[in-house]
Structures are given as C-alpha cells and as structure tokens.
C-alpha cells in the first residue's frame, strides 16, 4: 500500500518536473521571442539554453539554482530597474513562479518533444492513465445486480444508502428504447407485440430489432455529427454550400448501421487515405473496380476535415486560410477523438491540463500538408458534364442579349438609381417584350439541357508543399515562434514525436490514427463509451464528454467507465454491443419516478437510482410529429433536403435564394437528419428546440423549456399542416370519436388512453364547432402540445 502511494507520488513529481521545464520554455517562447529571439535585443537570445546562460549586454541571464540572483527572474518580478516584458503589465504571477521554480530546479532545457525522463512517467491525472479492467465490486444485494454494469452502480447506491427505483413498465420501456435507439416513437404494432411477448428474451429481441433498423444509424449518426460540428455550408459572409458534405453524413449513418468497429471508424476519418492508399484512378473501365470502391468508402471518412466552418474571405490570404483550417482540424480532432479541449493551448500553455502550446501545434503539424480535394467518381458523368460546358457559352450569349435589351430600356427611362426588373418592364417596346420573352424561354431550354453536377467526393489529400508549422505566439499566426514537428501530446506518449523518413509519402495522420486506436490508449475508448452512455442516460459518466481534462467533471463512476472502456475494446470496438450491455442493465430499465429520501441525498440523480425523464431533442420533436401524422418519409441518404419555410421564418436569412426549398411534400417529410445544415441559418423550429451551433464540436444538447417552443408547437405552419395530416389519418380510420381518440393516443403517445382520458378526449371530439372536422384537428394539434408527447419517461 505504502509502496503504491510512494510510486504514485514519485510519478506525479516526475511529471511536474517535466512540465516545469516545458512550461518555462513555452513561457519564454510566448513572451520574449519577439525581442529576444531573432532580433536579439540587448544581445539576449532566449531560444536556446546556451545563449541564455551566455546572456546579453547585462551578462548571463540566469544562474541555475539561484533565481534570487538571476536577472531574468528579477526582470520578470519587476523589482529592480529592469522590468520585462516592457509596458505597464508584467507576466501573470503564476508564470513568474514557474520561471522561478524552473531556475531553482536547475534550469533544465527540455529538448524538442522529448520529456526529461527516459520513459514517459505515469501521468498524474486519471484520464491520461491507461484504463485497467477493474474487478466487479461486491454488493450486499447481489440479486439486484444481474449485470456487471449494475454491480458498479449498486455498489455506489448502497454506499450512499440510496434505494434503486423499481423497474419501469414494459410500456415505458418500449417507448424509451425506441426513442433512444431510433429517435422515433414505437409503432403501435411494435408496442402491442412487445407487451404480448412474455418470453424472457422479449427485451433482448426488441433491442435487436431496433438496432437492426436503418433508423438506428440516423439517430446515432446524428449524435456523432454533433461531435464533429457537421455542416453543409461554410458559415460567415456568403455561407457557401459544400456540395459533398452529405456524403460524409451518409458515411456516418452507414457506419453506425453496419456497426463498423469504432477503431476502424476513427482510422478512416483521420487517415483513410494514408491507411488505405489508393489513387482511385480508373483502370480502363467506366466502372470503378470493387477494391477501389471499398477504399473510397474508407477514404470518405476524411471528408470530416473538409466541411468545417470557413470564412470565404480568408481566401484573400492563403496563410490565414491554412491556419484557420488547421485550427479547426486540431480542435475538432482533440474534442471528438481525445475528449480533450485543446483549443485553449493555441494561445498559451493550458493552465489546467498538461497539454502545452507545443503539443497543440504538434497536432496542427500532423494535419499540415493535408487539404481538401474533389475527386471524380463517375467517369461517364464527368465526360457528359464537361461536354455540357458549351451550354454555358450558349447561356452567356442569351444573357448578353437580354441585358442589351434591358440597357436600351434603361436608357429610355433615364438615369438614376437602381431599377428592379419589374420597374423596367414598363419601358420595353412591344417588340422588345416579345423578344425578351423568347430569349427567356431559350434560357430555360438551354438550362434544362445542362448536365447535372459532376459526381465527386471531397476528401483529404496531400498538398504539393508541406508547410512547416510554427508555434504561433499568443495564437497569432503572424507572430511566429519556433518550428514544431508533428507529434502527440508529450504527457500521453513516451515517444511523442512522429518519426518521418525523408522521401516517403506523408503518413502523419496514419501515425495519429494508429496511436489513437491502440487497445490501451487512455482516452479513445473511454471517451466513446461515455458518449454512448450519455445517449442512454442523458448524462455521461463524465458529464463533460469533450473534456476529460482537469477542467471537466470527474467521473461519477470511474471504475464503471474503465470496465466499459475495456469491454468496448474486448468486443472489437462494437458500438452495438455496448448498447446491449448498457440496455440490459437494471439501471437502464428503472422507472423515472422521483423517490424520497433519494432525491434529498442525490437530487440530480448522479448515482442513477432512477432513470432520467428526458425531453425529445430537436430532431426528435419534428420526426415524432411526422411519424404520428403518418407522413414520415423514411427514404435515407442523398443531398440535403431544404424544407419549405414560412416567409417570416426565412426573413432572417441573408438572401432567400440561399434557401431553395424542396417543394415535393414527400421530400420535405424526410427525417430531420437529412435537412440542410446551413451554418449561418438553422431551421428556426430546430433551433428553438436547441439544435446546436455547428461552429464547434458539440458534446451535449441543451434541453431548454421556453415560451418560443410553445409558440412553435401551437402556431408553426409545419406543425399545423402535420396536425391536419394526422386528423386526416384518424378520420380515414374511423368516424367514431372513441376509436379516433384511442388511435391518436397510440400513435402520438404510444399507449392506450385511460378511461378518464378517453372520456375527456371523446368530449373534445364531440364538441360543436364552426366547421366540421375542426374538433379533430384541434385534438391532433393538442396531442403535439402534450408534455407526454415531448418527454420520455
């Protein structure tokens, strides 16, 4: 016992020594280099320890071991005549303390990327240590803990004197499972079958059926799309459309549906091109060879890095564009795969985590030399497309002729201001008007003949020149610090630098992907099982799924997290296997009722003595409305669907032509995951229900509860039209109010009404009304506005 403590203490000490040296160097780099780097003002150069010891015009800058007589430290303390850095403000006190401690501990100079020890010491912070499979804890009431998951949870509950809530009813469970796994309400027939099934396998079979449905990937793919800040457009001024982003969305959905092992999913997204190298050139046939198609599928994962937010005006400055892209790549990678928020380290060493600024730029350097490229995937269509380009010349000619007519009319109108086309129309002569009409018709005919888009994929490739990455002092890319080589965070890896052989193709991302997917990586499996857990309980074991660092919440059940992480790897990184493990626990199947005295001891249910009642997410609200109304179109995949919006909804948009709504009602009734994700403009109803901003990785959905949500469900055009469809559906089934009411209940709420509810519902449906059908329509709209519709027990 004592030995363990001692070795832990020593390990912690080793880390802090390594961190102090690294930190001191980074502080000097971040604050002193503009003057005491290349410019060597006062003769002092702090880029290496040799020149520091040699010092400048005032002599040696420091004496190792003696901060009290070291000019460097005294200047930072601003006690003598020399005050550094110049200006009113000195360095923050904690940074000055680091320099003092560093000098006093001997002023060791860390070499690039190599920690001071020969092997990386065991990190002090829990999430950076390898998960070790824990033994199952002993519980007093073992009969209550049939699954390993329950053993961990029950042990905590018993220790705190909390009594688990009883199991939820089968009715509650089928609705909970359906929304959790597919994001849709259970079909009435499915509910009935499950209720009737008394076999011991009924629950497992239900889970299997739900996991096998294509709607599973749509629900869980959307979880992942949040994490990787998915968007179909660039954001910023212009908010340009990314025509191939949807291929990545479909790739994600398919990956979940086929239960692609998570390690492969990680490898494909980070380095599909480097791990499965393939030129994807055609070889004498219009049909892409089968192996190439498989490699293309792997490679599609890298689209992740081609769909981030981008200010098109950055195109004015190549270096800025590259820097912003690398920033997005590094930040998204750290948040999504490592569960570490590294964005802070862009500007300074992470105050709380042992991630240094150098680590951050080492991660950027992994992505240096990687850029998006469009690859043609259908030669025949490519040829047609290119052939059709002459049609554009024809269009140009027609446009010229039209504008000549307009100019003539404008000249007659006289000078002054802008005139809209309709203002101008008055001034055409009879002949001009006819000619213009004819020309417009020709435009339409030519436009119809222009071949549709050339099918391409946008994936990551290597650029001709691989730029060197400099540490950006205070995060400003024009303020260049030392060159940083590609590598992993030093605290996580004994060999942080990626070894490169000159002349070999770039394989930096491959190195990152292989490192991340090692079975014993401390973060990869933990971070993903925590996301899966959150999807089932509404809260992760670590409540901050994108921050497993010191700023994040500590795990409520650390041993359970490690057990799940090791189980995940042991089960070949199968996400579906983890759903089964979690959902087969009693913890998942508890009632959501609040019990005393539990709620006094653990009001937020951190220890999971009950299930959490949860509001549907934005997509869930819209999809459940469509499903109840019977209009839901389950077609999957393809380019984004742009739903029609009311004039007032579209009003906030920069330019309504940027929202070319799809007017086929069947298309507009597709699942929400297929709707256009425009970074500068969220579909208002989805935004009202907390769909996240797609600028950054989003780890968790808010679940707010505000009046605009009520207004949307009461008055929104879409909701009202769906209520009409719902009413139509019910009236086609039967003219009997009792039958209509019961059916409405089953479709919207997944259960039979109680006698009292039925009586009230029939009374509502039998009211006199100004128009026939109005009571049924009001009834359907009411169902959408019930708390029970929005909340899952």
């Amino acid at each position: 016992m004592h030995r363990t403590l001692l070795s832990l203490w020593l390990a912690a000490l080793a880390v802090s020594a390594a961190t102090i040296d690294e930190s001191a160097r980074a502080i000097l780099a971040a604050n002193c280099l503009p003057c005491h780097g290349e410019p060597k003002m006062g003769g002092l150069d702090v880029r290496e320890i040799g020149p520091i010891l040699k010092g400048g015009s005032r002599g040696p800058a420091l004496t190792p071991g003696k901060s009290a007589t070291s000019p460097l430290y005294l200047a930072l303390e601003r006690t003598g005549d020399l005050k550094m850095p110049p200006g009113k403000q000195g360095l923050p006190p904690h940074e000055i303390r680091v320099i003092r401690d560093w000098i006093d501990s001997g002023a060791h100079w860390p070499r690039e990327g190599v920690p001071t020890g020969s092997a990386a010491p065991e990190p002090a912070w829990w999430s950076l240590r390898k998960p070790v499979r824990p033994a199952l804890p002993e519980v007093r009431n073992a009969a209550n803990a049939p699954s390993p998951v329950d053993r961990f949870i029950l042990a905590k509950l018993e220790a705190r004197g909390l009594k688990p809530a009883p199991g939820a009813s089968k009715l509650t469970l089928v609705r909970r499972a359906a929304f959790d796994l597919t994001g849709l309400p259970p079909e009435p027939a499915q509910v009935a079958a499950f209720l009737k099934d008394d076999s011991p396998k009924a629950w497992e079979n239900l889970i299997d059926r739900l996991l096998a449905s294509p709607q599973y990937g749509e629900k869980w793919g959307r979880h992942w799309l949040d994490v990787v800040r998915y968007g179909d457009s660039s954001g910023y001024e212009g908010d340009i459309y990314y025509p191939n982003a949807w291929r990545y969305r479909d790739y994600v959905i398919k990956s979940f549906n086929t239960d692609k092992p998570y390690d492969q999913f990680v490898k494909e997204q980070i380095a599909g091109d480097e791990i499965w190298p393939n030129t994807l050139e055609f070889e004498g046939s219009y049909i892409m060879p089968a192996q190439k198609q498989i490699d293309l599928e792997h490679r599609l994962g890298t689209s992740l890095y081609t769909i981030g937010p981008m200010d098109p005006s950055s195109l004015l400055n190549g270096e800025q564009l590259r820097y912003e892209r690398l920033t997005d790549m590094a930040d998204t990678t750290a948040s999504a795969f490592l569960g570490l928020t590294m964005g802070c380290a862009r500007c300074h060493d992470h105050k709380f985590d042992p991630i240094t600024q150098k680590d951050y730029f080492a991660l950027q350097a992994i992505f240096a030399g990687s850029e998006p490229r469009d690859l043609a995937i259908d030669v025949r269509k490519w040829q047609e497309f290119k052939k059709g380009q002459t049609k554009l010349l024809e269009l140009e000619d027609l446009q010229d002729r039209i504008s000549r007519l307009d100019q003539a009319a404008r000249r007659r109108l006289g000078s002054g201001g802008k005139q809209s086309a309709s203002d101008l129309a008055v001034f055409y002569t009879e002949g001009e008007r006819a000619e213009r009409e004819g020309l417009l018709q020709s435009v339409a005919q030519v436009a119809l003949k222009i071949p549709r888009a050339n099918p391409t994929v946008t994936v990551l490739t290597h650029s001709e020149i691989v730029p060197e990455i400099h540490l950006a002092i205070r995060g400003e890319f024009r303020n260049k610090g030392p060159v940083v080589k590609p590598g992993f965070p030093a605290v996580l890896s004994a060999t942080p630098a990626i070894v490169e052989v000159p002349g070999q193709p770039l394989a930096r991302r491959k190195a990152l992907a292989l490192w991340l997917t090692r079975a014993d990586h401390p973060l990869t499996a933990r971070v993903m099982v925590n996301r899966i857990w959150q999807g089932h309980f509404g809260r992760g074991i670590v409540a901050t799924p994108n921050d497993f660092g010191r700023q994040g919440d500590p795990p409520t059940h650390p041993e359970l997290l490690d057990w799940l992480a090791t189980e995940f790897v042991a089960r070949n990184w199968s996400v579906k296997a983890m759903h089964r493990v979690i959902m087969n626990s009693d913890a998942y199947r508890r009632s959501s009722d609040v019990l005393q005295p539990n709620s006094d001891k653990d009001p937020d249910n951190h220890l999971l003595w009950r299930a959490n009642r949860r509001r549907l997410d934005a997509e869930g609200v819209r999809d459940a409305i469509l499903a109840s109304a019977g209009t839901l179109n389950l077609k999957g995949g393809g380019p984004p669907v742009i739903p029609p919006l009311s004039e007032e909804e579209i009003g906030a948009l920069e330019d309504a032509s940027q929202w070319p709504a799809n007017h086929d009602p069947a298309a507009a009734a597709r699942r929400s995951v297929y709707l256009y994700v425009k970074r500068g403009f969220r579909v208002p109803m989805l935004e009202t229900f907390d769909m996240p901003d797609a600028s950054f990785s989003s780890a968790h959905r808010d679940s707010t509860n505000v009046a605009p949500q009520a207004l949307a469900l009461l008055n929104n055009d879409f909701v009202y039209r769906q209520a009409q469809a719902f009413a139509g559906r019910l009236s086609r089934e039967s003219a009997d109010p009792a039958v209509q009411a019961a059916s409405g209940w089953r479709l919207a709420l997944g259960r039979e009404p109680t006698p009292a509810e039925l009586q009230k519902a029939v009374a509502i449906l039998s009211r006199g009304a100004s128009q026939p059908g109005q009571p049924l329509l009001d009834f359907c709209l009411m169902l959408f506005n019930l708390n029970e519709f929005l909340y899952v027990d």
Partner: protein
Amino acid sequence: MSTNMHAPLHRKTSFSSRREFLEQSGGGFGKLALLYLLGLDAGAAASNPLAAKPPMFPAKAKSVISLFMHGGPSHIDTFDPKPALLKLDGQKLPESMRGVRLQFTNASEAPLMASRRTFSKHGQSGIEISDLFPNVAAHADKLAVIRSCHHEAFVHSMALNIMNTGSARLGFPSAGSWVLYGLGSESQNLPAYVVMLEGGTKAGPPVYGSGFLPAVYQGTVMRTKGAPFLDMNLPAGMSNAEQRTMLDDAQWFNRRHMEERPGDSNLAARIAAYELAFRMQTEAPSAVDLSQESAATREMYGVGQEPANDYGLKCLMARRLVERGVRFVQLYSGGLVNGDDWDGHAQCDKNHQRMSARVDKPIAGLLADLEQRGLLESTLVVWGGDFGRTPIMDGQLFSTSGYDGGRDHNPYGFSMWMAGGGIKGGQIIGATDEIGFNAVVDPVHTNDIHATILALLGLDHKKLTYFSQGRDFRLTDVGGDHMFAERLLKG
C-alpha cells in the same frame, strides 16, 4: 386579459405584480407553475434560466438600445472631423502607413479624400458633428463620442461578429445574450432581447445568437409589419378562443401527467411556458401597437415621413419595449435588402446622405422621447457599426471609371457614441491620427466597449463567465477594460 398588463412594467416588476397578473390570468394554471413563475419554488426557479437576477454591483442602466449602422459608417464624415485632410486631399498616404491591410484597396496607391461634409460645433459642449446628422446634433450635450474605437477585423462578417460577440470567429454569444444571462428578464410577456433587422446581416443570425450559451438567451427577431415575432400568428382559420380551448384541454392532460410524476420541475416549467406563450401572443401586438402613440410623438420619430419612416418605427417600438422591461434592443439600419446599407465603397458621400436621412430624425426623436419620459437615465443608447471607413479612396473594384469617391473598411480607428444610462454627455473620448486612420489617443477596443456596457449594467465582465469547451469564456474573452466607464460617468 387583465388591463393592468397594458401599463408599463418597467422598473416596477415585482412579485406582487407578477402574482396579481397570474391570479387574474385565466385557464388552468397549476400551483407549481405559479410558484415557478414567482420564483418561489427554489428548484423550479433554478430551472428557469430567464428569472430576473440582481446585478453584481449597483447598475447605472437597466436596458440597452443598440443603433447599428450595418455596413460601417464613415467616422470621417460624421463624428470625427479631419481638417488636415482638406490640405492632403488627392495625395497619397505617408510612406509609413502604406503597409496597412485593407479588403479592396491598395493603400500605397489610393489617394486621400477629405470629407465633403460641413462640421460645426453643437450644444454647450461644442462637439463637432457633420451636417449628415443635424437632428442628432441638437442632442450633442447628451452624447459621449468615442473617437478612438478599434478592432482587428476588416471584413464585414468578422467585424459584425466582433462588434456583437467580442470575437471574430463564429460560435460566440452576442452581447445581448451575455446581458440576459447575467441579468435575466424583467419582461413578463415579451422576449427580453429583441433585434429588428433590415433584411438580415452579412454575418447572419449568429450576430444575435447565443453561441455556446443556452438558446434561451438568443435575440428574438421582431418585425415592424405583421405579427411582431415568429410563430405568433394563429394558424389560419383558428380563433383565439378556439386556441384557448385547445390549450386548456392540453393543460388538463398536462396537469394530470405532472401530478403522476411529482418532483419534476421541468414539467411545471413547460406548463408555465405555454401560459407565457399564450399571453405573449395576446400582449405583444398591443406592446407594439403604435396607434396608442400621439401624433406628436410619431412626428418626433419621423414615423410616416419618408425616408425616415422605417427606422422611426423601429426607434419608437424600441422605446415601448424598454418601457415594458425588455433588456436589450438592437436596431439595424441597412442590411441585405437590395444590399442597401452604409457600405460606401463607391460614392461614399452620396451613400451616407441617403442612409443618414433615414436615421437622423428617428434617433433624435428617440433621445428626446426617452428623456422626456425619464427613461434616458436608465437606458443606455449605443451608436456604431461594423467599423469606420478609410481616409483614402476605395480601390477600383467597385467602379469601372477609376476612383469613385468611395471609402474602404477601416477597423483601425473609428467612432461610436453613447448616451443615457447614467453617462455624462457632451464629452469626447480618444482621438484618431490627423487623417483619421488609426486610433492614437486612448484607444478603445471593442472588448473595452463591451466591458463598459456590462459595467454600466452592473456586471463585471471578468466575472460574467460561462464554462464551455474546457474553459470559462466571457464576452471580452481575454481582453476588455471597463475603466473608461468611469470617464463616461464623470466626464
């Protein structure tokens, strides 16, 4: 609906008025929902993110009206006279300044251009204001003109982001969201953060979005025509009474549902949200019903007088909103309707004559009206835009006939002004250089402006933080200094 709701709630919001209101409001209101709204149920109150909160220290202002000139008004032609430019007109920039980065203009070639406007001193303070703002100039003694504003973003979207969220990057909460997060809402039946647009902004809704703050804090777009807010019109063919009946039915079921699930404050909160929504629907139209305003008041704002009508309506509504406890109102002049805004790349003078004629009288009317109603003391009015404009002519991108009297974007030095909210009017803070390119005396960064707005509202910008992406964020990020708030107050 009770008549007392027509009376302004501003400054008088208290539990008693809320209680009074709630007791009189019809239609199935659960006890829990009542407690929730009254903030009496601790658990439920904690779950209402919009509950009114006290400031961190005594506040000078309670509300903010932001007058935002979309596109970027030229300081040189409005609030920052540069007589030196008259001598330098047509010459090139001094050698040392030619390296400056601009969006469309080559700074080493473009000629300097003096303002075509006439500046004169106004009020007792003698602040110089150009003839583009004759009506606003009459209120010179109310204004604190900050002539040394600056930030880093020289393209619109990033500048709009930085002016509104403190950061050029996407995804950060707007100032209004931070204010709401810090102070909550005093308004019973109106959104607490209202934005009026002229066809959207070049950076889209994110400029009034809540970024990583919960969505409840985002700005709500209000329109001057038709239903004021989104989803506020009843579906065609449904009457108010019919909807009330439907809602009563829904709440009947909702209450039963809640009673079977004790201890869940979310369910009570949603029942309350429905009542708020229904009330908003009936009350908001009257809050913005300008027929209740006298002809003299309407005249004062330029309502009914082109080209001032639209902005006049906005300013008048802003006053009515502030009266009713709305916390933050932002009024855009210019936007994406026909691309008509203050972005004077070509013939800047002509552009500004057109744009200022739309806003001058309405803004003056707003200042006068706020003052006569005793609201100016507690309402901070802030005037500004994306950035200022260059003293050199815009490059040739926008004109086929060479330099065309335009001005390019200039974030390096520009003017804003503030009035009301306890600040001392009739003063000038900071200065740009001789030609108006860079802020040189007492430079005030956008972060400082934001820190100051928060300070006047009783919020410390360093303590108003929200944890996201691994750290505590704030409106001013790592910058910001509210020291000049002291100067604004004392003069």
